[in-house]
Each structure stands twice: as C-alpha cells, then as structure tokens.
C-alpha cells in the first residue's frame, strides 16, 4: 500500500531488520500501518499541521530577518522503544546525572577530582562556563542541574551512546508532550493496542522538583523567560501554564532586602524558586553582562545569600561543555564507584597534540565540533563536506585547537518517516529529560528529533529537523 523505502544495509533501523523483516516491538504498528489507506494518513497529517498552527506551537529561527514563526515538522510514525532498552537508558541517565551533579558540587567546593589528577585544572577553571561566584556556595540537596536533557543516539552496532549532556536550559519537552497529545488525538486506536508509557504528568513532576529545590514551605515558583521573541517562548508559556505558575520576564521582578519580588496586581509578591530559561550571562546585569535587559539587577547577591533558588543553578555549563564531556565516564567511576551504564562517543580533544594530528589527518571521516557550540551551528561533518569546506575548517582548527573536539561519524539509527515519495528511513536521536530534586524522576519518554533530509545526520530544528512521538512500551509480562 505504502511506497516503503528500505534502509541501507549496515545501518540500524528502529523498525526494519536488514532482511526486510520487522522488529518485534514494531510488528503491531506495522500491521496497522499497512491496513491504513495512504489517503487517510495524508489527511491525518494535514490535520496535525493545522492543529499545531492553531495552537501556535511554533518556534522562531535565529537569523531569519522576517522574524517569522515556523512549525517544527511533526512526523506521524512513532519512534518505539522496547521496555528492556528503556531500562538500560533510564538507569544510565540517572547514573550520569547523579555524577554530573556530584561533579558540579565538587568543583565549586573541594575540587577532589582535580586534585586526584583526573581532570586538568585548566580544563575546569579557565573554562568560560566556570563561574567563580559559585565557589563555596552550598545548594539545597547539592543539586545544580535540576533539569537535564541527555542526547542519546543508537549507533549501527545497536548500542546507545550519549552524544551530549544539556545542563543549562535544555528545551524540547513541550514537543514531547504536544506530540503525544497529537498522536492520541489522531490515532486513538493505536494506544488501545499498545501499552505506551504515559508522559503527560511531566509538568507535575517538574513542579514537584522545583518546589523541593527550596527549603521554604509552599514556595512560590515562577518561570523566567527572555520574552516572546525567544525561539522557545512557546515552551516557556506552555510549562508555566501547565504548572499553574506565573511566566515572568526580568522586568517583572526586583530585589529588595535580599529577597526577590514580582510586581503583581495585588502588590509585591516574594519569589522563592525561579525556573529560569535564560543563560547565566543575562541573569543579572550587575554581576554578568551589564547590557542585559533580560535579567534582574541584584539577583546574584540574593542567590548567594540563599534568598532564592535558581533552576538550573548558575555555572552548570562547565559540566556539559564539550571539552569536559570526555571525562564524564571518569566522573561516574570517581564519584559513584560504578562503571558507566551508557557509553560516551569516542572523542579526540584537539588540545592534545597527538589527538590533533589524528584529527587533522582524518577530517574527511570525522565530525568536528566547537567546544562551546550548540544547535548544530559551527560544526563540520567530514564525509558530507566539500574539499574546500574541510580545508577551511582545518585552518580554523589549527588557529585555535583548544576550541575543537572531533568524533567518528556515528551512524545515527533511522526510523521510517513520511516523505514525499512515501515512507523512508530518516536518522533520529533522542532527548529524555531527567529531573533532580530530593531524588531523581523521569517520565518514560523523550523528544525524538528526526533529520528530514535524506542521509542527513543533523536533527536540530534550526537546521530543518522534525520531531516524532516517542513510545516507551511497558513490559506486559
């Protein structure tokens, strides 16, 4: 019925085996898919587009002068993960985030890991994301990253690898929730025939995590947004609304007597926990960037005196920096005395002369990233780049080797996806969200991003990526 393109052999496809067979956890779905007339599915896709537009789930693209809002394309073939895979992923992510929080506490206190010689001091302390203001500051429950997004991919060997940790202001969770809502609306029958783990309680878990972050009884929680021009504004408003808390901008708050207040129609109200969706540099013009109009003057001094909780804490960026990433497995061993359950992608650090040589000699088959880059900007994908692009990047690396790391070109697994010619494999990744409060909580799910261009490995929405609903199947046994 559907024009189905098979994956290239040697790649890992989430649904299809090399032999053309269907993996067990996709069998019910595949049977259903083949029973659906293509016109029906096309109509459902159009319906989804219309609904997303009406709800206004859009994002702004940086550097697009028209300032237009665009829809992130939504694909209706779900990414299905069997229970056994999820157990590994979940345990691995809990372990990883626990170690990252321990690392942050350590480097802002005694710095055991540096003294033990596991991580070179200059890697930490001359990192631009390291915040001296956090030194010696004690946080409740020693939690720095209350909300973490861990990007994982499945390689052609069938194993999951962590691509990067996001400990600053990870976004995307609203798409996880809206994609599920959309799928349940479009295809209710699929949820009757599949035991899909629910995700809709995420805002409740998030609110609990934020409330537990404060020692105050019944704390007032707010979401701090840079405003409606920000690309993730929809998500900020969505989460505030789902949690039933105020969505504030910096101008709505002020500092008085070592407390933070917001201006309301009933007078000034004290704020205890700020789920901030703006970067460290913009939080407080008195302490960081003086030209920031987004922050609250004096916020840092209140924070240091314990008068308000910021989630995530200031200075978490030092732990998700690409130059620190290669050390995460060592952190797990050092702080938890455990072996990592999830593997890192092998990484060459250009700052080391021997590894730099290897990188420069193999640029055509490596992915090279800027240490501080994000969003798929400023990276080289060797196998897809022209000779001129590789040469250009080579000069940039030689000029500033400390600024680059390189990794083998991983073959992200693929998942069948609706494209113009029918259904074809497209590469995907996965970002589950880990909440750290008194304990760690997660919903069984995450955001699956899909590179819609044939063969492309770049899944970022700013670079033409789309999203899928992610189904964790509950164990029926």
């Amino acid at each position, binding site marked *: 019925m559907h024009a189905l393109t098979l994956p290239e052999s040697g790649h890992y496809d989430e649904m299809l085996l090399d032999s053309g067979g269907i993996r067990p956890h996709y069998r019910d779905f595949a049977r259903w898919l083949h029973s659906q007339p293509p016109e029906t599915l096309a109509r459902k896709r159009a319906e989804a587009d219309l609904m997303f537009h*009406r*709800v*206004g789930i859009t994002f702004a693209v940086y550097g697009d002068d028209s300032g237009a809002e665009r829809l992130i394309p939504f694909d209706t073939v779900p990414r299905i993960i069997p229970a056994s895979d999820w157990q590994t992923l979940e345990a691995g992510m809990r372990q990883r985030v626990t170690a990252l929080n321990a690392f942050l506490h350590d480097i802002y206190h005694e710095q055991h890991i540096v003294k033990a010689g596991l991580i070179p001091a200059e890697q930490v302390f001359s990192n631009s994301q390291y915040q001296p203001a956090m030194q010696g500051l004690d946080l409740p429950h020693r939690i720095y990253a209350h909300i973490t997004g861990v990007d994982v991919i499945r390689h052609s060997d069938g194993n999951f690898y962590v691509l990067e940790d996001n400990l600053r202001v990870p976004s995307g969770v609203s798409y996880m929730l809206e994609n599920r809502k959309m799928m349940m609306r479009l295809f209710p029958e699929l949820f009757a025939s599949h035991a899909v783990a629910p995700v809709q309680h995420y805002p409740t878990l998030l609110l609990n995590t934020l409330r537990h972050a404060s020692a105050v009884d019944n704390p007032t929680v707010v979401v701090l947004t840079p405003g409606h021009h920000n690309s993730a504004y929809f998500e900020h*408003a969505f989460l505030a609304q789902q949690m039933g808390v105020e969505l504030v901008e910096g101008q*709505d708050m002020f500092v008085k007597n070592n407390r933070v207040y917001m*201006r*309301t*129609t*009933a*007078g000034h109200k004290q704020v205890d926990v700020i789920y901030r969706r703006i970067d460290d540099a913009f939080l407080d013009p008195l302490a960081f960037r003086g030209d920031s109009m987004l922050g609250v003057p004096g916020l840092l001094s209140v924070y240091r005196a314990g008068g308000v909780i910021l989630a995530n804490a200031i200075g978490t960026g030092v732990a998700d920096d690409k130059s620190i990433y290669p050390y995460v497995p060592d952190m797990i061993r050092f702080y938890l005395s455990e072996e990592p359950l999830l593997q890192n992608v092998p990484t060459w650090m250009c700052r080391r002369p021997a590894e730099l040589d290897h990188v420069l000699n193999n640029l055509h088959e490596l992915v090279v990233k800027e240490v501080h880059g994000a969003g798929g900007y400023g990276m080289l994908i060797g196998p897809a780049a022209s000779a001129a692009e590789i040469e250009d990047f080579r000069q940039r690396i030689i000029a500033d080797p400390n600024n680059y790391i390189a990794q083998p070109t991983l073959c992200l697994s693929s998942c069948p996806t609706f494209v113009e010619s029918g259904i074809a494999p497209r590469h995907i990744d996965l970002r589950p969200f880990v909440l750290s409060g008194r304990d760690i909580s997660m919903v069984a799910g995450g955001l699956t991003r899909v590179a819609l261009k044939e063969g492309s490995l770049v899944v970022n929405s700013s670079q033409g990526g789309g999203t899928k609903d992610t189904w964790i199947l509950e164990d029926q046994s």
Partner: protein
Amino acid sequence: MMLSRTASQLYWMSRYMERAENLARLLDVTHSLSLLPQSRGGADISAALATTGALEACRARHPQLAAGDVMHFMTFDAANPACIVNCLKYARENAHAVRGKITGEMWESINATWLEARQMGLEGRPLAGFFDWVKERSHLFRGTTYGTIQRNDAFSFIRLGTFMERADNTARLINVKSHLVGNAAEDSAADFYLWGALLRSLGAFEAYHELYRDTLSSRRVAELLILRPDVPRSLRACVDEIAELLPRIKGDTGHRAKRQAATLHAEMSYGQIDSILDDGLHTYLTQFLSQIHDLGDAIHGAYLEAA
C-alpha cells in the same frame, strides 16, 4: 493575583480592540456624512480627525486633507500609529504576549482579525465594507471573550480596558459634534443630520426612538449619550461598569482608582442634563475626559505598573 505586566497587556489588548471599533464607527458615519451637501452638515472630515488627535499628523502628510487621503490615513496607513489596522496590530501583539492567559478561541479570533486586516490593506478593500467588518470582528472578539474566559482578574482587566476606552471615545465623539452644532438655542436642519449621525455611530439611533418617541433634539441626545445607564455606549453605562469592576479585583491596592471611580459614578448617577447644559456641554465633556484620564493614571499606577 496576576503579574502587573500581564494585566497591562490584557487591558491594552481590549483597549486597542475597542479603539479600532470606535474608529470604524466614527469613520463610517463621517464617510456617509461626506456624501451629504455642505448645507446639511456634510463633509467636514477634519472634525472626525480632531476627535482622534491625529489631525496634525494627517495634515503633515496630506496638507489638502482630501477625503480619500484622510480615510486611507486613518484605516490602512502603517505610518499612522493611530490607524485602524495598527490598533488591530497592537491588540494582537498584546494578546500574543499573554497567550497563556487568554483562551485559544480568543487568540484565534484576534490573530485572524489582524492577519485578514493586513491582507485587506494590501488589496485595497472598499471602505464601507471594511468598517462593518471591523465592527463585526470586534463583536466576535468580545463575544468569544464573554463565552470562553474564566471569570477572574484577567476578565476584569479585559473589561476595564474596554470601558475605559469606550468612555474616552464616546466623550470625544460627543464633544466634536457638540462643537459643530454650536450653542444655538434652536436646532437647525443641519443639526438634525449631525445628531442623527452621532447616534448612529454609537449604535444608539434605535434606542433614542424607543425611549423618547420624539424628534431629535440636542438636549435629549446629550441626555441619552451621557446619563442613560441602559444605553451600552453612553458615558454613564461605561462608568457603571468601571465602578463595578475595580472593587472586584483581588488585593488591597488601588484605593485611589476605586475612590475616583466611585466619585465619578456618584456624580453621574445623580447628574441632571439641565445643569450639564447650563455649564456648557463642551465644558462638561472636557472635564469628564480629564477625570477619565486621571482614573486611567490611577489604574496604571496601582495595578499595571506597580513600581
């Protein structure tokens, strides 16, 4: 309790929507009057402009004040911040910033209005149809608001914006017409058209005949539009709503605003048209406008800025 900024955006969202509607009403009537011969009170488009405070800006752009130019200036000219399309744009921008506080249906209504208005500006839609369309979209937005939003502070600030703007706009309209009519003791034939136009622009023509069953006289029109509580665009009706809304807002702030609204409400409840006319309609309306502006400042200070 809500953020002052949010309250301010809700308030201005509905003020701009109401302003767009009143502009459409004003221009619609001016447009039909301009079709009448001069002796019947027609043509003076600059009077309409004067009510909006945009006369000087328009003269700077179109020194001849030709009717077609003025109409374009007041409807689609993006360079005029006070034109209808810009009012719809500001209403939509405020709604966008508080999308989480209004219902999806409200957002869709206000967003579709702006998108369509912008399109009409590009296509050059005939004006008469355009004015009716603006009124309809304003009715639709108000109806959607009444029919979908929770009765909380957000609703109060939205309504407050509507009636503050309407009180201001109605007073300006009467003020200009009364100025045109002048102080002659006897109503002339030309005045008949002017008062009729004023009633029509405020949707009160039918109410007049229902209530008075008599010919148009300046005294009765003034009474109807200033003091009658049962005519929804009269000054009294607006002040009734404002005085009722302010005490309903939760919290212990806004004493000055509440006191001013209550005072104004008492003055109007026990006001008499003869004493207003003795002092002069223009004097009364000028004073009313300044009271409304003071009240607006008090509302801003207490709720919308809360510095």
